């Protein structure tokens, strides 16, 4: 057990604003006929020409609060917030291609209405997420297809396309940027100078890529054909998304751009803005999250979903820093498990356990000779907890407090990241780990100790016919330093999840989901409906629906296996850099918690049924009539 310090920051920093809001609430008369549990906010969204606009995201934030609630207009342009606390709210409406509609509402009556008239704008590139930028880049010639591929392969591991292309530069400007990027050190990402070898593909394509980017986003006319994605409709427009700001523990002013104002473009994750990574809901109304970047204060934390109060937990580490982690999971008993850095440099990564009822922390260290705990953890159906390692997977039995080590069958490949990336435990006590750059999914049987593996097929690049033998040789010699961490034709399975007899793995570059039978190891690849978004983390809810984050599309997908139906939920913030998501059964209702790493937020999405919305609509009509 390590020493843990707990720090509360809560809303103290916003005390003045909170006081103002409180004063407003006190002096406003309240209505006795308020909706159950709060006040209702509704309205109509139209274009300036009077057209009713469906799928517009409408967000409300109580003054002085760090919580934003968002809903979407239906096909009649109407929106309905769930019951909210009384108070003064900033309300805004956003749709790609339109200026932000803004309003302020005092929720001091049973129901309030705020309508918006949306004005279109000619240049809305800054409002787009990566998938739409990718769709806008032309594929009319082999050269365009190849350079689009090169751009995606070499630049989007660290930056989404919408961030990269938000500004225009001439060829020299782009060339300078590429040169800088080519010389970054790993893993520190500092400028390495003349002596640091460039990423080979950056060096090889520097001139060609600079010319391509100047053609796409330079002084002249761009061949990009920009179009917004279809606005949410149907089920996707019925959800409620609540976003919670998780201020940086060391720099609470960051990130300055939290993605909720689309006119600012997509945020940067630099300067300590990024930090939170995985999120799990508990049975007590909290979301627990990991911290994946260095911090003096935070190793992990939790936020009270009702009040927004954040509690930071500090596990002291070397050099005055808190140790940090990456992955978090919840076992069948509601216990949280996550990884933590080694106690000392060079030591093994550790497994941490927290009982959310008591916040008691226990830390377990793999014995000497075994691999350390890596960047993903997952509970299996037999009470074990799996963790990805540098050499495969490791299973911890909480009863015996013993670790069991599993080695990948294919490990020392001359190319590719050797360690495991993601891991999932299944119902039978097996562990499944992804070898991201080798397109291999390993399986460890905790009963027999045997290891087997599934090898996924290579994916077809959009520019397979455009690459020369020389270019292929360059990629071969460059190995993992593409620098996409993988070769251009890899699927790149990332963080999987198991449900019943199925192991689901999202293929980050393949834009598909691998569905694997845990007994026969037979697989199928199911294409996802959004391209170039980056499927990252997969979770399965109590209804066996499959949920996936798309890192750079500001979207989470839901897949219903029996009907093979996909639903795409667009989140209210742009540039969130979505990473982890988890599902939670909240008294029969599925809640999906999502970590927005780039904007420093946790989002909780809850679907609403048509019946629930109709009831809310009826309630609004009734209360409005009573006014």
């Amino acid at each position: 057990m390590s020493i843990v310090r707990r720090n509360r920051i809560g809303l103290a920093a916003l005390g003045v604003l909170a006081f103002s809001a409180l004063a407003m609430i006190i002096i406003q008369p309240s209505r006795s006929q308020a909706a159950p549990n709060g006040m209702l906010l509704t309205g109509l969204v139209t274009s300036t020409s009077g057209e009713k606009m469906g799928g517009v995201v409408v967000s409300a934030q109580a003054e002085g609060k760090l919580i934003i609630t968002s809903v979407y207009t239906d096909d009649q342009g109407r929106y309905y917030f769930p019951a909210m606390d009384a108070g003064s709210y900033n309300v805004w409406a956003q749709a790609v291609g339109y200026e932000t509609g803004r309003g302020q509402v005092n929720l001091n009556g049973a129901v309030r209405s705020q309508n918006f008239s949306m004005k279109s704008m000619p240049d809305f590139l800054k409002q787009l997420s990566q998938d739409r930028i990718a769709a806008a880049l032309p594929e009319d010639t082999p050269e365009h297809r190849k350079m689009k591929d090169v751009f995606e392969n070499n630049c989007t591991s660290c930056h989404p396309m919408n961030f990269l292309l938000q500004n225009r530069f001439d060829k020299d400007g782009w060339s300078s940027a590429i040169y800088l990027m080519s010389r970054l050190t790993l893993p520190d990402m500092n400028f390495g100078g003349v002596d640091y070898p460039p990423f080979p593909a950056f060096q090889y394509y520097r001139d060609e890529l600079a010319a391509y980017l100047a053609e796409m986003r330079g002084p002249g006319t761009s061949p990009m054909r920009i179009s917004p994605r279809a606005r949410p409709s149907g089920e996707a427009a019925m959800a409620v998304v609540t976003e919670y700001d998780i201020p940086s523990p060391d720099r609470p002013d960051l990130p300055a751009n939290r993605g909720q104002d689309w006119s600012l473009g997509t945020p940067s994750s630099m300067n300590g803005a990024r930090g939170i990574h995985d999120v799990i809901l508990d049975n007590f109304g909290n979301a627990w999250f990991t911290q994946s970047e260095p911090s003096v204060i935070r190793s992990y934390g939790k936020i009270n979903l009702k009040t927004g109060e954040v509690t930071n937990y500090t596990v002291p580490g070397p050099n005055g820093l808190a140790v940090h982690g990456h992955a978090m999971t919840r076992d069948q008993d509601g216990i949280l498990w996550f990884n933590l850095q080694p106690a000392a440099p060079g030591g093994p990564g550790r497994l941490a356990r927290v009982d959310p009822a008591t916040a008691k922390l226990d830390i377990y260290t793999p014995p000497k000779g075994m691999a350390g705990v890596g960047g993903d953890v997952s509970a299996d159906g037999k009470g074990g907890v799996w963790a990805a390692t540098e050499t495969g997977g490791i299973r911890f039995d909480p009863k015996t407090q013993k670790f069991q080590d599993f080695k990948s069958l294919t490990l020392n490949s001359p190319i590719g990241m050797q360690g495991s990336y993601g891991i999932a435990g299944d119902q039978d006590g097996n562990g499944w780990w992804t070898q991201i750059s080798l397109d291999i999914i390993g399986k460890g049987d905790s009963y027999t100790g045997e290891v087997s593996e599934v090898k996924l097929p290579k994916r077809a690049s959009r520019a397979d016919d455009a690459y020369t033998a020389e270019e292929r040789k360059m990629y071969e010699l460059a190995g993992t330093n593409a620098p996409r961490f993988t070769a251009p034709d890899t699927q790149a399975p990332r963080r999987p999840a198991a449900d019943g007899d199925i192991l689901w793995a999202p293929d980050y570059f393949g834009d598909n989901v691998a569905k694997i039978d845990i007994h026969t190891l037979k697989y199928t690849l199911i294409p996802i409906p959004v391209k170039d978004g980056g499927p990252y983390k997969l979770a399965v809810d109590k209804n066996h629906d499959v949920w996936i984050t798309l890192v750079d599309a500001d979207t989470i997908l839901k897949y219903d296996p029996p009907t093979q139906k996909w639903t795409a939920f667009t989140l209210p913030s742009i540039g969130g850099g979505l990473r982890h998501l988890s599902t939670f059964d909240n008294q029969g209702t599925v809640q999906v918690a999502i970590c927005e790493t780039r904007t420093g937020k946790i989002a909780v999405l809850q679907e609403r049924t048509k019946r629930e919305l109709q009831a809310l609509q009826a309630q609004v009509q009734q209360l409005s009539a009573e006014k």
Partner: protein
Amino acid sequence: MQDESKSLELPESFLRHRMQRREILRMVALAGTGAAAALVFDGNSWARPLLSPQSGQDTQPNVDIQTVQIPTDDGNISGALMKPTGAGKLPGLLMVHADRGLNNLFLGFARKLAADGFVVLAPDLLSRAGGSAKFNFAQAGRETAQLDPDSTVADVKASYNSLAKDSGVDAQKISAVGFGWGVWRVFMLAQEVPSLHRAVVFFGTTPADGLDKIRTPFFEHYAQLDFRVTGNAIWTEKVLGKNFSYYVYPKTNQQFFYEGTPGYNADAAALAWKKTFEFLRS
């Protein structure tokens, strides 16, 4: 070039192989403190681990080793000058060390090259920081990182000019060999000295610009598992064309060339030496 060398008698402790190699190097006095020294090694087996890292070279001829002061635009830097014993003009070879300075490893390489019939000058590019002998392995790495890149190129060029003035050197056949950190500097030298005869470089960084000025044939050794370095072979070849050739040593990292490291591969290292000599003699 200022030859301030004189013979130095080896101490008893050295002969009994009890001294640390770093202490020996300090005795070699490449720090340029004024007590410049020359050692004459006769090929005795006790000396080979120090100055001849590649085993199985029992028939190497004697090599005269001198510490020299190399004039630059703003003073002198130290260097090791190694000449095969005997007379006559010989091809010159400038050897540029890696980022840990001119340590015993590279002195051994220089001697091996000299033993093959080259007049080898190995400048100590840490001279401006006090000299390689002043630093341990880790310190040397930090110190080289602090050096101004352009200044080191100027020092390499000054070393080339010194070697060209040596009466025992065929000025038309001066080549260069560079390792790691020194590779970029050899490429930069070739940009400034088109008459550089040949260049052999081991796992280093190619300059991002200016390669079109190079007329010198280059040969580069790459280790397959050093992806970030090795992946640049294709671009370098594309730009330099017929003036660039390379070889990738399968399933190796850079350590394959350095005896005593975990990744040392005697067969690969021997092949690298063979290719080096063949290219320099071509």
